[in-house]
């Protein structure tokens, strides 16, 4: 198993597109790291540079301390699972799984033994003599994983392996993948655009945007302390509410239309008068009974009008609108009663749950 070091990795494609820049990360032995970000942010590019399928144009990649920038894909001792499975269509399931081992020149007995083992682990034993076209999507994905497992590589790479499957199967395979990682104890690097996959699978998540890492941390750390506004809005569903505001001279956080939001316990001196983006997660907004108006300095409070309510079973999402037109969502428990549209609502939040971002740079304050 292996440790991976990405030292300032960057990629400029032949056409001049600088897809990825300045990627610094150390993936520990046995760690499950998920790269997540919107489409086109460079996730696949990073994964393919690690695999050796794209040349590295900047920086250095080390596997177990050894520089592998110039090493052929086959010599890096990695395995990759592709989005469209990339099963060899003219070979049986067994043929697909043994192809790599035969290229390594392993003896027949060892090949058979490894295939049997992997097939048992992935419940593929009954399918070994089928052709890929005779398999369902989920089965194909299992074969692709089996093909990776039999090689017993140092690092497993996954490029959106579940995105072609339906929701139910995705959830099931997600659990299997997590179990597989635990069983193998290998280093996994996993690319997805789905934040749920990222949150549920990862030991650490790397959030990418525009070819750069925005934040690299454990899932809950990212959720609780997003490093910048992009991360804050990317992770979480419904997305974090962002309100435009600014800091008054005496330490108040004000909404842009003047409504005072809250007083910071300790004013941030050098931010006086500066514009802010104020983030608050839907589950941190609570309705305060109207009329109890006495707003305390300890709570932030907002006056809104309800747009509509979504009952999702376990949750109830209320969409509402501020006086200045900005929309917010709040998450209530599944037992919450519907709130009529257009009814006024007073919301409060614990200041500890607010996230303040510099409005220009988007960085967390």
């Amino acid at each position, binding site marked *: 198993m292996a440790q991976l070091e990405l030292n300032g990795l960057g990629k400029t494609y032949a056409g001049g597109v600088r897809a990825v820049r300045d990627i610094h990360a150390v993936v520990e032995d046995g760690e499950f790291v998920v790269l997540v970000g919107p489409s086109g942010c460079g996730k696949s590019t990073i994964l393919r540079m690690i695999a050796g399928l794209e040349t590295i144009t900047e920086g250095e990649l080390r596997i177990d301390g050894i520089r592998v920038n110039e090493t052929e894909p086959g010599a890096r001792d990695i395995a990759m699972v592709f989005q469209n499975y990339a099963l060899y*269509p003219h070979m049986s399931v067994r043929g697909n799984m043994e192809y790599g081992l035969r290229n390594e020149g392993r003896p027949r007995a060892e090949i058979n033994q490894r295939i049997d083992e992997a097939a048992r682990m992935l419940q593929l034993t009954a399918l070994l003599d089928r052709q890929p076209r005779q398999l369902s999507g989920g089965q194909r994905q299992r074969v692709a994983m089996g093909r990776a497992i039999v*090689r017993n590589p140092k690092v497993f790479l996954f490029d959106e392996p579940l995105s072609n499957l339906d929701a139910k199967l995705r959830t099931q395979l997600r659990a299997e993948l997590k179990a597989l990682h635990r069983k193998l104890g290998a280093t996994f690097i996993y690319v997805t655009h789905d934040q749920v996959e990222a949150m549920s699978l990862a030991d650490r998540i790397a959030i990418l945007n525009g070819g750069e890492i925005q934040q690299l941390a454990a899932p809950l750390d990212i959720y609780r302390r997003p490093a910048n506004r992009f991360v804050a809005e990317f992770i979480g569903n419904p997305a974090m509410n962002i309100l435009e505001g600014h800091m008054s001279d005496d330490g108040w956080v004000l909404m842009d239309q003047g409504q005072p939001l809250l007083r910071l316990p300790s004013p941030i001196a050098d931010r006086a008068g500066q514009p802010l983006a104020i983030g608050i997660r839907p589950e941190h907004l609570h309705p305060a009974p109207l009329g109890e108006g006495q707003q305390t300095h300890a709570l932030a409070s907002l006056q809104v009008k309800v747009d509509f309510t979504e009952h999702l079973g376990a949750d109830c999402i209320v969409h509402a609108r501020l006086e200045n037109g900005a929309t917010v969502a709040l998450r209530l428990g599944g037992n919450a009663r519907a709130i009529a549209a257009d009814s006024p609502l007073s919301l409060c939040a614990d200041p500890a749950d607010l996230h303040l971002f510099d409005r220009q740079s988007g960085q967390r304050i």
Partner: protein
Amino acid sequence: MEKRVFFRDPVLPYLLVAPQIVITVVFFLWPSYQALESALYVEDAFGFSRQFVGLDNFRAIFADKVYLRAFGVTLVFGLSVTVLTMALSLGLAVAADRVLRASTAYRTFLIWPYAVAPAIAGVLWYFMMNPTIGIVAYWIEALSGTEWNHYVNGNQALILVIIAATWKQISYNFLFFLAGLQSIPRALVEAAAIDRAGPARRFWTIIFPLLAPTTFFLLVVNLVYAFFDTFSLIDATTNGGPANATSTLVVKVYQSGFVGQDYGASAAQSVVLMVIVMAMTVLQFRYIDRRVNY
């Protein structure tokens, strides 16, 4: 998968296939019938009278040493052209597939020979290889010291028509191979690279098997081309000579019919050709189509 289409109007489907049927009848079935009929008659040289002779024409051509030799020539010619064409065009297509994502100029360039009319291709090679004025003939003599004269040397003449026919057919093959290569998902080749297969192994274990449908299609196309579609090229280049060294079966049909004025023998030879074409078509549909379907 069921791909049947249902029409509500009972006449429409017949109207839709009518043009194709008319073309087939006029340009294929009618001439075929005429050839079949003529093959059973002997006609006098001026075409005034003819006489029913049954299978005599067939007996005569199969007793004719020159005709039997044409079988051998056709086989050598056809197989050489097919193998050469496919090997060269596959090589070119693989090379082009690598660089093609950058430029399409290369592709256009390689398609040109296919746009050249067969007779013109023949004349082109006729001039290039001409023992007295041909530039290629000059190079061959300069480089290898062997004298090039395909007017005298039957083997050289055969080589010449093989080269000309191959050159003519490469671009067509190239296009199909290139399309075939480009339709192979890149991820498959990448997966193989990660699975420790070197470039040669990737080619023979992944790319080549996946090209099989294209390869078998081209195999049949090239054999049909070499056997039946090279008349004007051979006629323009060597005229079937010297001493029938480049007389393939199609050239023989022409020579017997239009030069020798023996319509019966010519028609009998056409019938033989027809049988061969049908056999190859059956082979393609029955055997090959099934085998390469993965």
